C-alpha cells in the first residue's frame, strides 16, 4: 500500500499560483471543425442549423455560423509545453509512476465559464492560463485529494474576450 502524503501543496506548487502558465494560440477555426464538433456532440441526432447551414445562419441574430459554446479550438495541439510544465510539477510530488501511487491519478472536477463573444470560422483564439487556487480534502475511498483551480482567458484575433473559464482539476 503506497504511503499517503500529508500534503500535495509543496512550496514549488504554491509558487505556480498566479503565474501565467501558458499562452496558446489556436490554429484558425475552420467551418468543418465546427460542423464535426456539432455532429459528434449531438450524435445520434442532427445538430442545429446554426452550426452548419450558412444560408440559415445568415438570417439569425448571429449573421452567420457560430461554434457551439463548448467548442475547443485547441484540440489536437502539435505540442503542449505549458501543460507539460505543470504535469512535471505535479509529478514531482509523486514517488514512482504506478497508478496506485497517490497523486498520480487525475479527474476533471468541473468548470465555471462566463461567455462574451462566440467563436466563428476564421477566428484565431489566444488562451492565457494561470493557476489561481489550490485546496485539499480527504476522500473516503481515494485518500488525500488535491483540487487545482485554473483560470483560462480566451480572446480572438480582434482582441475581443471570448470566455473566461475557471476549471477544477482533481488529483489523488
Amino acid at each position, binding site marked *: 500500500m503506497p504511503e499517503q502524503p500529508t500534503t500535495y501543496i509543496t512550496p514549488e506548487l504554491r509558487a505556480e499560483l498566479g503565474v501565467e502558465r501558458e499562452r496558446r494560440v489556436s490554429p484558425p477555426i475552420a467551418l468543418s*471543425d465546427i460542423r*464535426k*464538433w456539432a*455532429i*459528434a*456532440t*449531438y*450524435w*445520434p441526432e442532427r445538430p*442545429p442549423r*446554426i452550426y452548419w447551414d450558412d444560408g440559415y*445562419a445568415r*438570417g*439569425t*441574430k*448571429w449573421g452567420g455560423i457560430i461554434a*457551439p*459554446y*463548448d467548442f*475547443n479550438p485547441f*484540440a*489536437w*495541439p502539435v505540442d503542449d509545453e505549458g501543460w507539460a510544465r505543470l504535469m512535471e510539477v505535479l509529478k514531482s510530488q509523486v514517488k514512482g509512476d504506478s*497508478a496506485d501511487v497517490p497523486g498520480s*491519478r487525475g*479527474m*476533471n*472536477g*468541473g*468548470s*465555471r*465559464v*462566463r*461567455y462574451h463573444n462566440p467563436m466563428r470560422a476564421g477566428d484565431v483564439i489566444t488562451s492565457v492560463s494561470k493557476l489561481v487556487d489550490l485546496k485539499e480534502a480527504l476522500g473516503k*475511498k*481515494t485518500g488525500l485529494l488535491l483540487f487545482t483551480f485554473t483560470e483560462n482567458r480566451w480572446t480572438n484575433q480582434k482582441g475581443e474576450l471570448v470566455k473566461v473559464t475557471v476549471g*477544477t482539476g482533481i488529483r489523488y
Partner: protein
Amino acid sequence: MAKLSYAVKLWWEDVREGQETPPFVRVTDLMNWNRYAAVNDEFIYFHMDDEAAKAAKQPGVFGMGNLRWTYVHHMLRDWIGDSGDIVEVELRYTGLNLKNDTLTAKGKVTGKRVENGEHLVDLEVWVENQRGENTAPGKATVRLPARGKG
C-alpha cells in the same frame, strides 16, 4: 415596438420561475465517447478501456466530464434557440458516467432579472442518470430577447 430582423424562439416575458426546460437525453457508450474524443483530442485509456478504468480505482470505463458539460449547453441552446444567448454555466462532476447510462441534461428556472438592460434568466442545471442520480449539479444564466427591446 422595435422589430427584430430574426425569428425569436423564446421571449424573456414567456419564461416563469419554476419552469423546466425540455430535457436533452443521450444513451452513452463508446459511440458517444469516441466521437467526443475524436473532436476534443481526449483519447484517455480510462475512457476507452475497462482495465485502465479499474486500475484508476473506478468501477469500469466511464465518459468524459466535458461531454456532460456539452450536453448541458445543448439543452440550453435547444431551449433558447438561436435568438437567445448562453451567458454563464457552472457545473461540478460529482458522479461518473458509466457505459450505457442514459444521461438527461435538465434545467429549472430559479429567477429572472434585468441587469444593465439585459434580460436574463437564471437556472439550476444538472445531468442525471437513469437511476435519477444527479451526476453533475450546476447553474446557468441565459440572455433572452424581450418584447419591444430586442
